[in-house]
């Protein structure tokens, strides 16, 4: 069936609503993104279906939905009363708990921080969901579910009542900035491409989410794929592109599957394809796989990869908006950026600007990982403080340890220490703190984390992911890693710190693309925030956090040792001696600092020094 005009779309949506009203009152939503499935959601889903059918209760319906972001408690199941809107979320659900949960028994998740009890009155809810509004609420494989949530209404409005320039204006006025990390004003980018007179233009969705620990875009594609398609049609119309390409990493098979399905469904309704809504506008898209190269998140590299070439950045200008794919004007936006578009169209630019800060309106999705109690995917208004995110939504540091720093912006960003936790964060404040927004990865570190080691980890990442084109990035990254390795091994000198600074400056100044230009950031930021840790490694040959194995020694406390021999048996190099029921001793010359004894000791007799 083809939908030829907004009226037909409204009629269809109304019809679906009527049917939905007659259907089940209780929805059982099983979170089945890649993360949920990995945590065991599939048997849980099956168990609930079985239980519901066993009960023969027609009021209940089991749905597979996208990720709700509660990574800390996957698999999760939400029991939603459609009539009252009341819901309860259960975490760490096992298949055998299906019956109990349906009876209201199980581990309930404190919900208010994540989801407002009442959507109109958020109360103490720290999140605001624009991008993730449908994820976890609808079956991503059902276009009907998307219709029911107002899907394709924004597109209908754009294609039938707005001129392309008006769309660009609206996005410009909304102040939406690119969520891929750079924060370039989206409307401005579009207006450059829109101004090009070329017959052929291309619209590319950058879904090559590559930051370690970042999975914002995956959640959207797996949980709400139609929103991305709708946004791309709108953007295509705005800039005058008839062809869209979703460049998605091959490591996201479920996202690809759901996008493909969504495209098929949309095409069947004529929502993509020729002459959409009889507007005379044609737009179709296809999926292009990325092969796991971080640098292909850089737009020129991404475009080259799509062209069948090796994904290596090339110099700008010309900017892709003027000459990109096949030398035609090309807009590259990231998934999260697109996911904001339908809401902006539906609710208006003014509404969008009420959320977030003046310089960075709207929300931002973050994936918080690391040493927080509640790791997960959250969406907060711009301007939320890090403290609210880490200690509110993240519920503080695990095991009662002390917060040390949080890394934002992934490998291109920097770390932020305790003293800046109350800064309301947006693009500009993060930059001022020496870090950056990036795509939204947020890694929380506690006192057990060594900041030199952290810097080394990120430098190793960018070193491995450098495309190899520019000398400073290719060789400089490797030498930077070598210097950090030297320091963490206890062989560093104070001169090395000067070398690192000079090297970092050269790499930042002379590299061609963002990867190289930002690669030294984690080092510079940790050196600025935690200079004493670097000095400790170099001058005292100590790792204060006890992380750098070369700089720590394991010592058996004779007071606590019971002579159980367990440590000696676990030691892979046989450097622990001692008779049964006598004190044991570690031969420091033979010890390889593997920590096996430390892990094995049941009497806390072994300590790191």
């Amino acid at each position, binding site marked *: 069936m083809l939908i030829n005009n907004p009226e037909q779309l409204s009629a269809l949506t109304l019809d679906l609503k009527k049917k939905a009203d007659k259907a089940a009152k209780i929805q059982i939503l099983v979170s089945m993104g890649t993360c949920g499935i990995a945590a065991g959601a599939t048997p849980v889903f099956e168990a609930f279906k079985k239980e519901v059918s066993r009960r023969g209760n027609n009021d209940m319906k089991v749905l597979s939905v996208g990720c709700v972001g509660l990574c800390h408690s996957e698999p999760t199941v939400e029991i939603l009363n459609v009539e009252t809107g009341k819901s309860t979320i259960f975490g760490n659900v096992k298949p055998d708990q299906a019956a109990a949960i349906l009876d209201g028994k199980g581990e309930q998740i404190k919900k208010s921080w994540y989801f407002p009890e009442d959507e109109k009155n958020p109360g103490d809810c720290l999140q605001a969901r624009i991008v993730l509004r449908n994820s976890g609420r609808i079956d991503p494989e059902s276009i009907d579910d998307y219709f029911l949530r107002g899907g394709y209404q924004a597109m209908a409005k754009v294609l039938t009542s707005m001129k392309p320039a008006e769309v660009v204006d609206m996005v410009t006025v909304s102040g939406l900035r690119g969520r891929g990390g750079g924060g370039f004003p989206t409307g401005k980018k579009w207006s450059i491409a829109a101004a090009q007179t070329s017959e052929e233009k291309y619209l590319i969705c950058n879904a090559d989410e590559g930051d370690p620990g970042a999975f914002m875009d995956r959640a959207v594609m797996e949980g709400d794929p139609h929103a991305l398609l709708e946004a791309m049609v709108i953007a295509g119309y705005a800039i005058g592109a008839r062809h869209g390409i979703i460049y998605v990493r091959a490591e996201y098979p479920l996202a690809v599957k759901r996008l493909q399905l969504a495209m098929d469904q949309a095409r069947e309704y004529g929502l993509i394809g020729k002459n959409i809504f009889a507007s005379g506008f044609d737009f179709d898209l296809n999926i292009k796989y990325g092969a796991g190269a971080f640098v292909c998140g850089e737009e020129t590299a991404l475009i080259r990869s799509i062209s069948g070439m090796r994904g290596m950045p090339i110099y700008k200008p010309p900017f892709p908006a003027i000459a990109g794919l096949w030398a035609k004007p090309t807009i590259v936006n990231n998934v999260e950026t697109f996911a904001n578009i339908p809401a902006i169209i539906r609710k208006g630019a003014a509404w969008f600007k009420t959320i977030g800060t003046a310089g960075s309106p709207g929300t931002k999705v973050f994936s918080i990982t690391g040493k927080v109690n509640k790791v997960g995917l959250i969406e907060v208004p711009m301007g939320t403080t890090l403290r609210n995110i880490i200690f509110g939504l993240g519920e503080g540091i695990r095991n009662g340890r002390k917060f040390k720093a949080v890394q934002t912006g992934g490998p291109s960003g920097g770390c932020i220490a305790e003293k800046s936790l109350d800064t309301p964060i947006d693009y500009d404040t993060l930059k001022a703190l020496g870090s950056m927004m990036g795509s939204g990865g947020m890694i929380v570190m506690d006192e057990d984390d060594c900041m030199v080691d952290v810097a080394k980890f990120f430098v190793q990442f960018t070193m491995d992911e450098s495309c190899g*084109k520019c000398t400073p990035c290719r060789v400089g990254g490797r030498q930077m890693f070598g210097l950090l390795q030297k320091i963490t091994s206890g062989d560093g000198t104070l001169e090395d710190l000067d070398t690192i600074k000079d090297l970092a400056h050269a790499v930042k100044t002379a590299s061609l693309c963002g990867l190289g230009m930002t690669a030294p950031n984690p080092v510079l930021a940790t050196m600025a925030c935690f200079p004493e840790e670097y000095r400790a490694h170099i001058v005292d040959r100590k790792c204060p956090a006890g992380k750098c194995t070369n700089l720590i020694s394991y010592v058996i406390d004779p007071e606590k040792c019971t002579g159980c021999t367990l440590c000696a048996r676990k030691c892979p190099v046989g450097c622990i001696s001692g008779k049964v029921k006598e004190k044991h001793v570690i031969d420091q010359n033979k010890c390889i600092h593997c920590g096996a004894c430390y892990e094995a000791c049941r009497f806390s007799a072994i300590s790191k020094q």
Partner: protein
Amino acid sequence: MSKIINITIDDQNVEAFEGETVLEAALRNGFEIPNLCHNKRVSHTAACRLCIVNIEGRPGGIPSCTTPVVEGMKVSAFTPELEKIRRTIIDLALSNHKDDCISCTKDGDCELQDLAFRYNLGEKERRFPPIWEELHKTSDFSNHVLDYDASKCIQCNRCIKACGEIQGKGILTFVNRGIRTSIGTGYEEWKDSKCDGCGECAQICPVGAITVKPVYSQMKRIRAKDIQRVVQTTCPYCGVGCQLNIATRKSFHNTNEGRETILQVEGADAEPNRGSTCVKGRFGLDFVSRPDRLQMPMIRKDGKLVEVGWPEAILFTARRLGEIRETHGSEAIAGLSSARCTNEDNYVFQKFMRAVIGTPNIDHCARLCHASTVAGLATTLGSGAMTNSIEELERAEVILVTGSNTTETHPVISTFIKRAVIKNKAKLIVVDPREIDLCRYATLWLRQRNGTDIAWLNGMFNAILENGWENKEFIAKHTENFEATREVMKKYDPQTVENLTGIPAEQLIQAAKLYATAKTASIIYAMGITQHAHGTDNVKAVSNLALVTGQIGRESTGVNPLRGQNNVQGACDMGCLPNAFPGYQSVTDPAINARFAKAWKHPRLPAKVGYTVTEIMNAAHEGKLKALYIMGENPMISDPDLNHVKESIKHLDFLIVQDIFLTETAQMADVVLPATSFAEKTGTYTNTERRVLPLRKVLDAPGEARDDWQIIQSLAQAFGHSCRYDSTDDIMREINLLVPQYAGITPERLAAGETLQWPCPNAQHPGTKFLHKDGNFTRGKGLFSAVDHMPAKEQPDKEYPFVLNTGRILYHYHTASMTRRTQSLPMYVNEAYMEMCKEDCDALGVKNGEKVRVSSRRGTIDIAVRQTDIIRAGSVFIPFHFAEAAANYLTSSVVDPIAKIPELKVCAVKIEKI
């Protein structure tokens, strides 16, 4: 001249040209901003990051190599901060580069070494430890002629771009990423790739990462400073006429009488090749130093060839020729001159045959390649040569290539075509029965059945008229015989043509449209058009196409037969044809004849048309011809129907072969005269674009080998003729007087480095870049020819069901007398093979590499099968280079009635498993 843009660099006013980059402007004005990835022959890369500068109003470091100059731009190039960053970057590059200067062939000629010196980065000044060992694992030494030492690679991208942008091949690429990034081909080893060893990558490498294998010298490591002399001269292989820089030195041991040997060869930055060359040019010249070079004259005594001194050889030869002339008349003697020898050699040779011997029988192997071009284009346009220059091809909007496997036969010309496609977005139309390399670059590939060229050419003509794509004004003003031709073309509607040729009607029309409506369009053709029993008509049909569309007589627009051999154009120009004196002046025209007789101080010159190559063999067979003087040809491999050729040669009373090796033909001779090779003599070659190129002496001749013209001169003197030239310059001066096209190509201009294209009527004339300017044809008006399709003379039948096609391959040259005597080229291919498709292989039950017996009505050879998908079922292809399985045992000597060119491209064979 480009517009001047004023900028400042470090507060100094600098005049830059519009379109220039900051780096180019800086370098031109003496600001030596360091750089490694920049090279003027390839596009900008901006990878080494050394050339970064600060530009007022723009944040950060800006790579000057990619930034165009803008009026008023203020550039800071050498601030302390920038210099510090550069030093750090060089330091980094050095840490990833094996410090092997002591044994590196690039020592003293290495751009990284230069920077290490400039920035004082000795070992103790460096801050970063060496890490190149990680990279060394990806080194690849498998290529036959090139080495890749990854531990020295600085990842500058130049080799990749040389391969992709200059050569248009795109074989080299980066592999791996991060610090492991290195150069590779995507194959396990370099040798598995399609790399053909042109060596463009080695020539452009700024360090010692990609280097040439030492194929020339006993010295395994050669540095720039080992070179004692570099001579720029002309390549002896194909008709492109690449200018080569040949580097030499003397032996360390003062052996070989202090003679020099070749160390290495590079493409010279000059027309026509602009720095490029192919695997033969770069790695295939070591044949000149082979020990089996002929060094002494030989005379057959008691059935054996015995070395003798020059006086005896000359006296004996002259006496025998004299006797035969006495007994059988001068017409019982014929001469085959050589497309491999210089213009001067050829000029003297034909003069000797005509004036001293008094025979009209002189021809050479152009008969086997472009006789139909010379005949066809001379008739329709007035001149049988390439109308345009090679370099113009790069800017043609449409290029139609037919019957030319350009990549293999004219490798450097193919790079111009590929660049036209890749860089300038030209549309390439390939018409060829085989899926040749150029098909990969083609917008359209029309696959005709072998021998149906007139049909598709006429079909395009028809489609052009049907659709109104013809150039009416041009036809009216500049052509004749249009109406009669139009009548004939009517029956070649696309559907009929599809039935005849197998080319889908729609493709034919598309091709016609592309070609006819282009602003500039060039046709390129070669043996696939000419080597047919209706070769002359084929050529005329090609010429029709250019005339009906007016696609001729402009830059990048014309009809371009690619001449095969280094001097086949010149040998024709010099009158080594049975019907023409030098400059295509008819022997039968009494006035011309008298003019030459006067110039050559000879009372009477033969005034009739003599025998052609094939007629010479027939006449010998019939006993009409008694003596044959062959200079630098090897008909025992190159001529059709070898059994017949062998019989014919055996019938001769006296055979003289003058060559550099004891070829298959020389082995049958009564007298063998040792000649010098290209490297040992002076003179000129005329390449396929009519450019007269100098040959400069590189080495001393081996033994007592002499220049061809000197040998001929000795013979003439033995006949009592007063012929006396002191040098090739003397000969050229005589050519200047007698050949109008060459009148202005004087020894003085050649010595001054001018490479002029004929016609060049006087000493002030700049030469002619393209012919028939503005429709003013050499013959007056362009002549349409009402040519009709004729099937090939020998069609496959039940007994001989396959169509055999023959041709050349990249790695060998003609009869392989030179290429098989090189170290490197036989490593690529050293065995005869026959291309056959899988379908036919399966039907015959033969596997790739198995030997089969191939027979025609004339002969039989045993040959290995190479299974390939580039050829269609029912046809096979054999390269004709290999004596042990010479394709020409099979080919037919049926000839074109006008040009007498044999039908080498089509004959019927049968194939049996053995």
